[in-house]
């Protein structure tokens, strides 16, 4: 997908005034510091990958950005209702059809024209022919696309995705990314967390590296490789070397 990623990278406005801006976010769970003074910004149509080892604070960061959790310190300049949020596990009702799920969450999101929002997302997620099927009968990939579609019902300028491609096979993952690229092309800023470092390199214009709740890096994948001193090598190797350099 380098071509797709490149096409996104060259979008005008990717580095324009940010539609998402968070500064100095900190969060503690008891004695454990889950986030420490983390800042992040994303412009329209920009793809931002949040990467890091297990327990780095990726999900906590996205939850705070989405307004699910509150930060102990710091602030998010963007209001939660301007942020679409897609949790890691599909958040939908198996006993409802695809269209019923979309309709319910459109109403709960306060969409002005429910049916228009449902129709738009059925088309955008390419689920029109499955509209009347129960969500429990969908494949993992289709469920995840429905999951993303629910997050987009209110047409937010920013979409937050928590591990969107986890548990998907390569073909399903490919279709999901096509869908996400389409959103970015239309100007939606997409911030996603992932374990898959290669996926971050291929799709993101900006990567944010977290470890033990601390932001260690923010910049393009190429810049990360440059920091490590291996601008032509494997990104995953560069990422591991970077963490080692920083004592993680």
């Amino acid at each position, binding site marked *: 997908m380098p071509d797709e990623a490149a096409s996104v990278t060259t979008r005008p406005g990717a580095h324009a005034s940010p539609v998402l801006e968070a500064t100095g976010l900190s969060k503690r769970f008891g004695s454990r510091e889950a986030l420490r003074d983390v800042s992040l910004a994303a412009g329209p149509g920009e793809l931002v990958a949040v990467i890091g080892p297990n327990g780095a604070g990726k999900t906590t960061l996205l939850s705070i950005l*989405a*307004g*699910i959790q509150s930060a102990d310190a710091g602030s998010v300049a963007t209001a*939660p209702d301007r942020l679409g*949020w897609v*949790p890691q*596990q*599909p*958040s*939908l*009702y*198996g*006993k*409802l059809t695809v269209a*019923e799920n979309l309709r*319910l*969450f459109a*109403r*709960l*999101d*306060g969409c002005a024209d429910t049916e228009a929002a449902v129709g738009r997302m059925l088309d955008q997620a390419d689920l029109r022919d499955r509209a009347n099927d129960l969500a429990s009968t969908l494949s993992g990939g289709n469920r995840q696309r429905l999951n993303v579609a*629910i997050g987009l019902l209110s047409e937010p300028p920013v979409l937050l995705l928590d591990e969107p491609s986890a548990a998907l096979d390569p073909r399903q993952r490919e279709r999901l990314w096509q869908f996400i690229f389409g959103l970015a092309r239309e100007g939606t800023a997409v911030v996603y967390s992932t374990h898959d470092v290669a996926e971050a390199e291929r799709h993101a214009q900006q990567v944010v590296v977290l470890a033990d709740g601390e932001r260690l890096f923010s910049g393009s994948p190429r810049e990360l490789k440059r920091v490590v001193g291996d601008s032509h090598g494997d990104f995953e190797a560069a990422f591991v070397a970077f963490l080692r350099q920083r004592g993680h």
Partner: protein
Amino acid sequence: MRWLLAKDLRILGRSPLLVAMLVLYPILIAALVGFAVTSGPSKPRVAILNEVPPSANTIDLGGQRVNVSKESKPLFESIKTVKVHSRAEAIRKVRDGDVLAALVIPPDITRNLEAATAGGSSPPHLQVFYNAEDPAKQTFVEDTIKARVQDANAALAKKFTQVAASYIRLLSTGGSFSFAGSSFDVLGLRRTESVLRATASHLPKGSAELRGLKQVVDFAVLARQNLGLATGVLNAVGTPIHVDSTVVKGGKTPLGAFAAAIAVTVTLMFITLLLAAGGLALEREENAFRRIVRGIVSQTGLLVEKIGLAGICSGLVALVLLAGLSLFVTLPWSRLPLWILALAAAAAAFGALGVAMGALAREVRAASLLAIMASLPLAVLGLVPSGAVSTGLYDLIRVVSAGFPFRATLDALQSALGRSGGIGAPLLHLVVLTVVFTALARLALRRFA
């Protein structure tokens, strides 16, 4: 919030097995509880071997013919009799469990009864055979037979009292008396007195004969007056103690209405707890909770929706159950608004308890298990009557029971169904419990996601 309610109802509608289980299971439990609480086996099956020949059913009691079979009818009124033709058959039926006990009426019972009333020393005996493999059953059978024999004894005693009283009347006032086919005229004390007074009027005043005769007249008067009191004494001996009962606590709820209140309370509790607890936990299992409360629905709004969902479903089932029960027991339909008020308050309180359970358990299976496991002790605690346990334990049970909606629901429904006490206090109690459990659920939601 109405969209969430519509969603939940749609999901319920697509789970027919769950709906069937939620409706049928509590109704079955309710029917069993109601049956167990209100109807003991009042007509036990008892085998009867009557060895008394038909010709010996009637005994002669001082010239009066008394039909023993007729007078001992109470013995058979409250048992379901199974006729047998031999002792062996009677014993076999007891051993096989066909009957609770066998009652053998020996052929000489009426003769012994007749002899006993004539001053004989050998009282009549009945023989009872029963199965003692179950101590509880043995006690029940013994008590039942003893109570029935006492009823029969009381009926016979009443008859004997009547016969004895008729003798006394005969002695007092005179009349005719039949014995062994012959008829006798008894003068009686009253006529004796008249005859003596007439005789005395012909005797010279101050004579020794007149003085003697006056003593006899005085005795006749005294005897007649005291015999007049004897009838009352005999009646008192026949039924020495009468029972006057006064209700000092609780109302006069008919037994059927009480059973209906129990059945409906149990049904309401099961359905509401399971739906509220399971419904809330399902939002977490479907990963939908955080997404929902990000939108226009607040966490408290979500709790209210689950309480409403569970309350509407259980309230409807409870109303249908009451309508069904009214085919068998008399229920005051004129008090329907009170039924609905009691059901609504109870459903809200149980719903609040259910969402608290769901929020604490967090998983559908754990929440359902918790709801079921909590229901049975709550019902049992709410049904313990005063006097069944020690005072201290009963006070403790009352305190624990007051912390949950079962007892208050039962009180409210009893009041609504049977004019038993005021409905205000139990309704207020249910409202307080609703607020407390909703607040507890709201607190538990902090660690729900």
